[in-house]
């Protein structure tokens, strides 16, 4: 159930870590799909879309930190940098899928 971390000598509850990461994963997946839809809706093309993705990921990261509390996030996550970068490219494909689909729906047809 609990694993020992040698460097900090703090015992973590692995189940809780996994649960928190799965919550964040769920939110990030829906965020990737929805921000893709919004980017397509706005008619972004090329690098503007990529910039919008980075903007959306960063703002979601801030929102997650806000939910965990800017001072108390250490109670819920081990690293907040990992929270920002985990699955960045994996969700990029979801984003591009929704982006191109909604762009086609709104702006092409």
């Amino acid at each position: 159930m609990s694993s020992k971390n040698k460097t900090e000598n703090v015992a973590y509850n692995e189940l809780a870590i996994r649960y928190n990461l799965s919550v964040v994963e769920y939110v990030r997946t829906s965020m990737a799909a929805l921000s893709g839809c919004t980017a397509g809706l706005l008619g972004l093309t090329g690098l503007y879309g990529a910039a919008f993705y980075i903007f959306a990921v960063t703002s979601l990261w801030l929102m997650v930190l806000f939910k965990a509390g800017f001072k108390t996030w250490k109670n819920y996550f081990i690293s907040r940098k990992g929270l920002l970068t985990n699955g960045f490219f994996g969700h990029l494909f979801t984003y591009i899928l929704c982006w191109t689909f909604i762009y086609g729906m709104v702006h092409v047809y």
Partner: protein
Amino acid sequence: MSGGIFYRILVIVGFVSLFHSAYSAAQHRSYLRLNELDFLGLPLDISIQAIFSLYLIVYGVLQVSGKFKEIKASAELDNKSWGTFRNIPSFYTFSHRGKAFSQFYQPPTTKSHLEEVE
């Protein structure tokens, strides 16, 4: 869970708003096509509505998705006392033989009485 319902409604409202802005954008596009104008970007109100509803949905989803748990292994045990761990219900003794030393103790007389007590 009244808060949960509130955030669910927030998500639904966000979706409706996002769909509405998409429909507005499509209409703007067809307006441009009919008037043979060039596309220079969406009107500002549609963009603002789209981004606002995106944030509305993401915030709602974040609240609906559940609370974070404390990752410290001792988090659940912090507000329990030491006595809680010493409490082992399986080893409770309700019928100790020491009660035979009591001066008010009346020993069972018949075998059927013994079975009744048990």
